[in-house]
């Protein structure tokens, strides 16, 4: 299979990097949702295998 065929079949798309998004890194953009998610995980943990 050629590289182009492999890329076309891949489920992972080729994504352009946008450096302007870096300014949002480290910001808590969903404070309430994140707090609730942390609370839920603290209570129920991860799935038992």
């Amino acid at each position, binding site marked *: 299979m050629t590289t182009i065929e492999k890329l076309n079949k891949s*489920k992972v*798309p080729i*994504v352009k990097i946008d450096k302007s998004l870096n300014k*949002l890194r480290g910001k*808590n*953009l*969903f404070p309430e*949702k994140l707090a609730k998610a942390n609370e839920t995980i603290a209570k129920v943990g991860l799935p038992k295998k």
Partner: protein
Amino acid sequence: MKLSRYEYTADGHAELFMFTSVGPKGAIKKLVVYSQMLQNDIYNLGFGDYNEDNGTIDDIVITDNNDSQKILATVASTLYVFTDKHPDVWVYATGSNTARTRLYRMGITTNLEEIIVDFEVYGLQNETWHEFKKGEDYQAFLVKRKF
């Protein structure tokens, strides 16, 4: 995903993704954010309308741009990019309200056969994680990439 999706851009760490929803209400910028949780191997998935003026996201607004399936397919697609970069982590997701959580469930249900090829999928029910099953109601979802 077989559904059509929007093209998107990402930050260099594949934790932030941006795309533009286009429909009857115009062009609306959407941001998908994977935030590391207190337990370091879990990331919270959040997304909503991005307000460039003040740098905030609104995940409660109902945009009504007639493209909810395309948006969900786009968000699902970012999971592949994110988990390629962060292969060993869990992704936690829940809607901003019950209706939106139900929309996520419908999105997973519609694409379940395809999703379970690449991801372990769990739903939270009565404070216990269960393997995701069609027709069940869940309060939250947890996924992990299979490699």
